[in-house]
């Protein structure tokens, strides 16, 4: 979009200056994420671009650190744990959160704001406080240093996202549809799966993605509540960074960026589908 034709020289200058400023801010946002990628293919254990790399010499690049990642038992254990924990906590969070959102969206629900506030409090309370509380309490009830304990903790942290996204989809939900289904003789369960679920599905999926990434990225609670056997990828990264960053961490980071690109694409597709369904999309 060029500056409007009626713009004067001052406005033109400002117009381009503004674009440059915005460009710099976008640069600030994205560079840190891109810069680690080439470095993860370094042959030498430094975090700098070697002259050979800048000359695009193929010998300066290698999969050495990826190889290290795939052969190191610590990292492999962490990957396994991360997926197991994220998988179960996502399922739990999605089911609990969706059901609760269905209840919350009913007009008759009493104390709605208060309950909503409580349900999304895990998102607001600083993680260090949640972690401190869970550390003491989960030890007391024997859940500390167990997979189940971490799964439950991550479920609690993930449900607010599901509640929020599903509630948002339900705002535009036409309740006469369920009444229509009922009047046509459908059982409530059938109505739920045939009428409600397809309509709220985008919200449920994006909530589930949020819950997944919450668990997958979470490190504070894991640091406190887990022990070595429940170590996750972020746990392993955190201890790695504290000790000394080996470029293996950059390889892991690069792969995690790829994971987030995939998640982002799924979300974007969902958003487009949702807009199309509601006839809001321009194209």
């Amino acid at each position, binding site marked *: 979009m060029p500056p409007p034709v009626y713009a004067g020289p001052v406005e033109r200058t400002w117009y381009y200056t503004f674009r440059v400023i915005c460009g710099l801010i976008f640069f600030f*946002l994205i560079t840190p*994420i891109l810069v680690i990628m080439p470095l993860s293919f370094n042959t030498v254990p430094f975090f700098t*671009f070697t002259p050979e790399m800048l000359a695009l010499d193929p010998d300066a690049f290698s999969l050495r650190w990826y190889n290290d990642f795939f052969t190191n038992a610590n990292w492999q254990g962490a990957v396994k744990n991360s997926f197991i924990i994220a998988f179960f906590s996502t399922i739990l969070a999605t089911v609990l959160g969706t059901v609760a959102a269905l209840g919350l969206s*009913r007009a008759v629900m009493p104390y709605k704001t208060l309950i909503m506030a409580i349900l999304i409090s895990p998102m607001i309370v600083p993680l260090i406080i*949640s972690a401190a509380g869970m550390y003491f309490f989960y030890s007391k009830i024997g859940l500390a240093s167990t997979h189940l304990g971490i799964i439950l903790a991550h479920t609690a942290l993930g449900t607010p996202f599901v509640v929020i996204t599903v509630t948002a989809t339900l705002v535009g939900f036409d309740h006469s549809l369920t009444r229509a289904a009922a009047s046509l003789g459908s059982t409530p369960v059938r109505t739920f799966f045939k009428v409600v679920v397809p309509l709220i599905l985008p919200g449920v999926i994006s909530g589930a993605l949020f819950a997944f990434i919450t668990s997958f990225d979470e490190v504070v609670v894991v640091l*406190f509540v887990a022990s070595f056997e429940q170590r996750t990828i972020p746990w392993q990264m955190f201890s790695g960074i504290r000790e000394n960053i080996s470029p293996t961490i950059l390889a892991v980071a690069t792969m995690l960026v790829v994971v987030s690109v995939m998640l982002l694409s799924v979300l974007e597709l969902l958003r487009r589908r949702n807009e199309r369904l509601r006839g809001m999309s321009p194209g």
Partner: protein
Amino acid sequence: MAQVEAAPGIMTTADGQPLKLSLQRALRRSKIRAMLLVAPLFLFILVTFLLPILDMTFRSVENQLVSEILHRSVPLLQQWDEKTGDLPPEDVFQAMVEDFKEGRENRTIGRVGTRLNYEVAGMSSLFRSTARKARRIKEGPYTDALIKANKRWGDVETWRLIKRESGTITLSYYLAAVDLRFGSDGSVQAQPENRQIYVKLFVRTLWLSTLITALCLVLGYPISYLLATLPTRTSNMLMILVLLPFWTSLLVRTTSWIVLLQQEGVINDLLVWVGIIADDARIRMIHNQAGTIIAMTHILLPFMVLPLYSVMKTIPPSYMRAAMSLGANPFTAFMRVYVPNTVAGIGAGGILVFIIAIGYYITPALVGGTSGTLISNFIAYHMQVSLNWGLAGALGAILLAIVLILYLLYDKIVGIDNMKLG
């Protein structure tokens, strides 16, 4: 329920029930159904999340240890008047020796020493050495025997401390969390100046959070404006530049900043290569406050952009055009017409960023060095290193209170129901 005879003149349903009653019942039923739907999650959050936090808060005042382990001497101490300046009577000493023998037996006496050492240095070794010697005290006078075991038992202050900390709840941790302490006469006084640290840390945490929020606003406002005014197709493309960092692991982003900012890092290399700085004059940008500010601003910027963008998207461009056609120059039009319309977005984004910032732990721990650490890092320190869990609980409870106040503010401005994501 018995069938109600329908009185004439009252509307009834097909089965003869009064309509009002029937409706009420239906309403109640659907209320119950709604509550049943919410109940599983509510109970789940209660058990896995709220109870742990309550438990932590309870720890910050809980103080049963002393009276539980010194269970013979503490009740007797209550009758002793600590203001006279005299030592407690012989029976207290005797009870204390008994308590020591028992505490030594089941290895609990050291915990009292550790607990009291938080208040006065030296208690830990007093209890440890006395525990070793108490076994050999067979007969009275116990006063002399105990003082012989360690002369600090002859100091009234020791007894005053035990009496003061023998209640089942204590405010000591909260006092310590705001750099205060109990004096020997029981009055509240300031910690010695060279030990004052937490107030400074809270101030630093609030100040850095404010600064980071302001930076996020300064950086986030222009790009949100650009995103909101560009055609959808272009803005969707640019939006990826905001969303990708948002979805990328926090640890990945922190790692990147370490790689970029460290002295042997990319930025310093670049500056040396260009010739702006000498190789031996590399800039320290990490492991200090600058590191925390840069990395956290980057990490929290999307939380500012997303709410700003969603508010700006709703402002029709005709507002600005109208203002300008009425004679306002673009700057005035922007400041007087556009900005006031975005206040809700500024409030939402600002409070969100601030709330997240004041509780941040991971990034300051990794890039903050000593000057860039926040209160959360000290909570972690007291939980994992110093093991002063009561103090960790008190610091946590204060932080939580600050966050909850902000949360209420957020609710007032934006409404919790209106919270949006992505």
